[in-house]
C-alpha cells in the first residue's frame, strides 16, 4: 500500500526530526490517545511531545510542494499524503478538516487503516533508536469496560515495535506511572489518576505495587464528542478550543457550551469516583494502611481551571469514602507526568 520511497520524505523530514541518532539510557513513553510524550530525563526540558493525529490528503505534486515548502513531515503512498504529529494540527486547520486519530479510547484505532503505521512514524519522530538493551517503559490503559481483549493486542503491537527500535520495552499502567512521577515522598503509596483523551486510568498503589487498576471509557474525546453532538456543532474544534482556553469548572457556566462541558466533566468525574468506590469495596486484598492516602491527578483533560477543586468536592460530597484520603493534588506537570513516571520506572530497572 505505502510507497516506501522514504528517501524523499526523509530528506524533507530530517531538519525537523527531534530524535537524535542513537539513544543511551532509559526512556519513558506515554502513548496517549491525543498525544505521545517521551521523557528521557527528570526535567521538563527532557520531554518531547507529538500530537497523536494525522491528516490525509490526496497525493498531488502541488500538495507535496506545499508540504515541502512548509517543512512539514509527511508520509506518501500511492493514493495519499499523510501529515502526522504536531504538523497535523496546522494542516487540519489549513484544510478545515478534522484530524484523524490512530488511537481511540486509549487503544489502537481499528477503524483507521493506517493507525498502526502512523503511530510508528510519530513514535519514531521522538524516540531515537536504542542499542538493544536500553530500558523503555510505555504506558498502557488499565482494564475496563470494552478494553480487555483489545488491550492485549495494543500492548503486544507497541512492545514489538519498540523492540524493533532497539529497546527492552515493557508496559506500565498509566495511573501507576502517575504514582511513580508524583508520589515519591509517600513511597509510591497513593492513588494516581490520569485523565486522558480517550479514557481515564486509575491505579491504587501500595509501596510501588499496583493493588487496584482500572480504566473508564470516558475522557476528553468523550466530552468533546458528546458536547458537539448535543449542541449540534459540525465539528469539535469549537468545543475543544472553549475547553482548552476558557473553561473554568470552579465557576458557574455562562452559556450552553460551558454548561454542557460542566455536565460532561461532572459525569466523567462521577463515573470515575463511583467506580473507585466500587473497586475498593470489591477488593479483598488491600493491605492494611495506617495513614490517609493522597490522590494525584494528571493528564490533558485535567488541565481546565477548577478541575482539582471540582474533583475534590465531588469526592468528598459523595458520602464516606472507603479509605481515608489525605489530599487531592494536581501533578506538577499534568501533561508529562505519565511519561515522567514511565521514565522513573525504566530508570529503576537500568543497572
Amino acid at each position, binding site marked *: 500500500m505505502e510507497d516506501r520511497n522514504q528517501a524523499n520524505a526523509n530528506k524533507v523530514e530530517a531538519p525537523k526530526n527531534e530524535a537524535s541518532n542513537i539513544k543511551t539510557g532509559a526512556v519513558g513513553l506515554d502513548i496517549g490517545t491525543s498525544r505521545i510524550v517521551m521523557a528521557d530525563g527528570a526535567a521538563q526540558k527532557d520531554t518531547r511531545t507529538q500530537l497523536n493525529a494525522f491528516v490525509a490528503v490526496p497525493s498531488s505534486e502541488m500538495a507535496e510542494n506545499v508540504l515541502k515548502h512548509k517543512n512539514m513531515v509527511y508520509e506518501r503512498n500511492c493514493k495519499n499524503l499523510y501529515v502526522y504529529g504536531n504538523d497535523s494540527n496546522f494542516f487540519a486547520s489549513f484544510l478545515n478538516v478534522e484530524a484523524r486519530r490512530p488511537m481511540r479510547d486509549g487503544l489502537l484505532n481499528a477503524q483507521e487503516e493506517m493507525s498502526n503505521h502512523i503511530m510508528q512514524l510519530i513514535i519514531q519522530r521522538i524516540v531515537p533508536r536504542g542499542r538493544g538493551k536500553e530500558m523503555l517503559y510505555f504506558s498502557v490503559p488499565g482494564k475496563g469496560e470494552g478494553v480487555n481483549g483489545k488491550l492485549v493486542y495494543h500492548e503486544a503491537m507497541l512492545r514489538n515495535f519498540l523492540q524493533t527500535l532497539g529497546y527492552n520495552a515493557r508496559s506500565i499502567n498509566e495511573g501507576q506511572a502517575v504514582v511513580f512521577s508524583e508520589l*515519591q515522598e509517600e513511597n509510591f503509596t497513593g492513588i494516581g489518576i490520569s485523565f486522558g483523551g480517550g479514557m481515564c486510568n486509575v491505579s491504587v498503589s*501500595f*509501596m*510501588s505495587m499496583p493493588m487496584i487498576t482500572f480504566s473508564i471509557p470516558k475522557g476528553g474525546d468523550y466530552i468533546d464528542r458528546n458536547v458537539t453532538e448535543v449542541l449540534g456543532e459540525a465539528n469539535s474544534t469549537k468545543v475543544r478550543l472553549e475547553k482548552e482556553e476558557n473553561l473554568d469548572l470552579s465557576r458557574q457556566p455562562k452559556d450552553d457550551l460551558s454548561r454542557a462541558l460542566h455536565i460532561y466533566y461532572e459525569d466523567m468525574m462521577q463515573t470515575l469516583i463511583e467506580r473507585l468506590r466500587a473497586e475498593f469495596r470489591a477488593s479483598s486484598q488491600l493491605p492494611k494502611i495506617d495513614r490517609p492516602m493522597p490522590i494525584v491527578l494528571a493528564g490533558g483533560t485535567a488541565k481546565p481551571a477548577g478541575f482539582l477543586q471540582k474533583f475534590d468536592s465531588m469526592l468528598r460530597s459523595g458520602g464516606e469514602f472507603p479509605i481515608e484520603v489525605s489530599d487531592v493534588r494536581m501533578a506538577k506537570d499534568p501533561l508529562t507526568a505519565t511519561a515522567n513516571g514511565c521514565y522513573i*520506572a525504566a530508570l*529503576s530497572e537500568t543497572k
Partner: protein
Amino acid sequence: MTATKAQISSVSQLTTAEATLFYSKTVERYASFFDRPEQRLRFLNNTLAHQLACKEKLDHALESHSLIKRLGLYERLKNAGFYDRLLDLWLHRHICRELQDLLPSASKERRHLLQRSKATFATQLLFRCYEMRRLLYGAAVAACVVALLGCGYTAVWSARRVNTYLASRRQTERRLANPAGNRNNAAVAAESGVKHMPDYRPEKVWLVEQQGNYERYSNGARILTDYETGNHTRGYVVLPRNQGMLVKTGSGEQSIRRHPVGIVYHTSESDMLPFTPDNNASIEVHTRGLLEYVRKNKSYNYVIDRFGQVYRIVRDADAAHHAGNSVWSDAEGVYVGLNESFLGVCFETNSESDSLDEQLTEAQLVAGRLLTQVLRSRHNISDAGCVTHGLVSVNPSNMLICYHHDWARNFPFEAFGLSDKYKVAPASVSEFGFTYDEEIMEKLGGDVWPGVKVAEEEFHSRAEKLNVTPEEMRRRMRERYREEMNLTLRLRTTHPAEAETSRQTDDSPPAPASRPNARQT
C-alpha cells in the same frame, strides 16, 4: 514492573495485616535514605521481591518436612509469631544489603546522604551498625573469648576454693573424730613418739656447715640467710619476784641483759593460695613478697615459709619488732616488751576467718620443730620461754589480753617438744591484772585458755593480801606496766630517734596483706 501478579496479590498477605503494616513501616523508614525516585523505587521493588521469595522459601521449607507437618508446628509457629519475626529478621538483613548496594560507594557522599536523609536516628544507627558489622563481629568474638576465658578461670578458681574448703573440712572432721590429736599436723608428730617431757633439755645442736646463703645444723635444720639483716642490739631487764611480788628494777646498767630468753611464735596472716602443685610459682612469689616486707620492717627474727624453708631475717643478737606490748614470765622473773628479750619466729600461714585454727603444712611443722631445737640449744632457752604471740600480747589502753590472736589457741606445743602454755598462768593477768571481755572469749571459741583462770585467782589473792580492791590494784599495775615498757624502750642501745621509730612499728601488722584478727594500736 518487576512485580508479578502473584507478587501483587501477595503483598497484602505477608501472613497478617499486622505483618504487612510492619513490613511497610520498616521499609519506609529505610526508603528515606534515597532522594532520587528511581533509586527509591528500585529499593522498594527489590525488597518486596526478596521478602516474598523468603516467605515462599520458608513456607516450602516448613511444609516439605513431614515431621513439622505431623506435629502441626507450621501453624503453631505462625500463631506464636515466630514466623513473622523470622521474616522481619530476614527483611532487616536484606534491607541493609540493599542499602549497601544502592547507596553511593564513595564514603563522603554516602555520609552526606545519610546525614541529610529523613530516616530516624534508630534507623541510621542500625544501618551504621550493619556497615560496621565486621568490626562488631570481631568485637563480639573477642568478647566471647574473654567471657569463655573468664568462665574457665572462674571454674578453675572455684574448683581450687572448693578443694581447699573440702580439705579443710576433712581436717576439721579428722580432728573432731580424734580429739587427742586435735593439733593439726601436730597429731602426726605426736603419734611418732614426740612427747613433752617437763625437764627435757634438747640435745646440743651445732652448726655443721655455713655456706654463702645458708647454715646447716646437726639436727638437720637448714637456715637460709638471703634475707638476713640487723637491727638494734637487744637490751632488757627481768622483773624478779620477791615473795610472790614484783620487785621494782630501776634503770641500773648492771641489770641489763642482751641475750634472748625465749621464743614467740607468730603467724604472718598474709593471703594464702591453695597449697597445690600448680600454685608453686605463685606461692613462691607471695613468700618473696612477705620476706621483703619482713626484712624491710625488721618484723621477725625468723620466717618459715609454706615449703618449710627457714629464713633468718633479723639476727638473733638484735631485737625484731614482733611482739610490742607483751608480757611473759619464767622461773627468773617477768619480761615486759618481748621484742627485746624473745626471738620472733613467724610461720607463713593464716587463720581462717571464723576460727583461730591456724594451718601449718607438714614441712612447716618439721622445720619449726628443728628451728626450735636449734634456738633452744644455741641460747639455752627453757621450755617455759617458748610461747605464742596470742598468749603474750596485751593492750594497755583497755587492760585486755590477747590483743593479737595469732596462735591464741591450737599451737602444736607437743609436736615441738614443748609443754602446753595454754595451761600456764600468764604473767600479764597474774602480775599486771590484764583481763578479757566477751569479744575475746568469743574469738577464743567461748572461753579463755585454762591458765588465765588460775592467773586471775592469783591476782585477786595478791590484791587481797595488799588490802586493796582488784580495780585499784589493776590501776596501779597499769602504771607499773607503762613504767616498765618505757624503761625497756630506754634501754635500747640505739639512739632515741630509732628507739621512737621502733616503738611506733612494734605493733604494726607484720605482713603486706591484711591481718583480719589483728587490732590496730
